[in-house]
């Protein structure tokens, strides 16, 4: 069969010699192919590459931005938390100081009050004692006078004399006690 084909082809041809029609056809066909690939294929593939790179880089950039935002927020929150702790500590300290001051004031006032009450009581007691002494003295005098007048009769009714006698008696009494 091959032999028939060769017979049909006829002429003897050196396979190393290029045929002009084939060169021209090869040039045209490859030229069309090259043009199509240059115009329609390579730009599309490059577009896909570029889009992919952009998508990946965009994603990374977005993630970085988000991370930075989150970091900033965390820092702000920590700052706020620290401030709040500080504030709380300050308020506690202030409260303690105020409490101490109030207690001290109260104590002082109480002491003052106590002192005042004691003073007052002393004065009252003293006054009552004076009063008691005075009234006792008068009563003892009148009692003694009454008793003595009953014993010795009516001789001591003169008031001046009576008072002198009583005084002397009491002085003697005190001396005797002492």
């Amino acid at each position, binding site marked *: 069969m*091959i*032999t028939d*084909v*060769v017979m*049909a*082809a*006829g*002429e*003897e*041809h*050196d*396979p*190393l*010699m*290029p*045929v*002009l*029609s*084939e*060169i021209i*056809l*090869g*040039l045209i*066909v*490859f030229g*069309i*192919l*090259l043009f*199509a*690939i*240059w115009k*329609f*294929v*390579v730009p*599309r*593939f*490059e*577009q*896909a590459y570029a*889009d*992919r790179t952009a*998508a990946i880089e965009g994603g990374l950039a977005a993630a970085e931005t988000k991370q930075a935002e989150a970091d900033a927020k965390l820092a702000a929150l920590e700052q706020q938390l620290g401030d709040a702790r500080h504030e709380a500590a300050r308020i506690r300290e202030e409260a303690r100081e105020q409490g101490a001051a109030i207690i001290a004031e109260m104590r002082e006032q109480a002491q003052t009050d106590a002192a005042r009450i004691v003073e007052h009581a002393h004065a009252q007691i003293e006054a009552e004692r004076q009063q008691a002494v005075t009234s006792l003295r008068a009563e003892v005098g009148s009692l003694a006078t009454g008793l003595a007048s009953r014993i010795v009769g009516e001789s001591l009714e003169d008031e001046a004399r009576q008072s002198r006698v009583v005084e002397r008696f009491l002085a003697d009494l005190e001396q005797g006690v002492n």
Partner: protein
Amino acid sequence: MSVTASMAAATIKAAGGSGFHAPGPEIFNLPPVFGEVTKPMLLLCLSAVLIIAFTVLSSRPAAVVPGRLQFAGEAVYGFVRNSIARENIGSAHFMRFVPYLFALFLFILVNNYYALIPLLQFPSFSRIGFIVPLAAISWLLYIGAGMWKHGPLGYLKHATVPAGVPLWITPVLVPLEFLSNIIVRPATLTLRLFGNMFAGHILLVLFATGGWYLLGTGNFVYAGAGVLAFVLGIAVSFLEVIVMFLQAYVFTLLSSMYIGEALADEH
């Protein structure tokens, strides 16, 4: 492997009068399908249609999260763009050359794999004429890039005078370097691809037609050899799968290396 095959073919020739005609260069001269148009020409046009359809469809969504087709397209594109172009040209200028290198890689790859696809079964680049334009474009590109970067004379000096050699040896080195860097490169690019595709196809045709012929001889031993030839043919097909990819890769890689070298500041 090929030794066994040719020995078998020789034996047949010696034994039988009818004769087995081993496939030679003439199997690459296919008759025109219509007018002046041959099968390789149609295959070449078909490859452009296939590649444009695949790349346009896979790149059109340009989605951030790729679908299956876009993922496949990006895998090929990324391979050429990053592993071949950027590695060898450097990230400053490589994007200018990516469209050419991407088209070149797919163009060679698809046309090579034609050789293994049933019914198509012909590597377009076993016709040297189709390779010449590609090698010429690569040649113009790396020389153009060098002249753009260093100026015409600066590039010639850059390409032919190696840095750091004694002055007295330059009269010897400069013609050699000129030959190897300016003249020979497009030729080796062309011949490497052509030779691999040409030889691979001959080998496959030989195993297939030879095996078929041996089976038809009616001799039990020859038939066994025919079966062996088919098995070897299948093994060689798998080898060709690798070779076809490698040739597309090497052509693209060398083109980008030449460009990168022309754009380099120093050797």
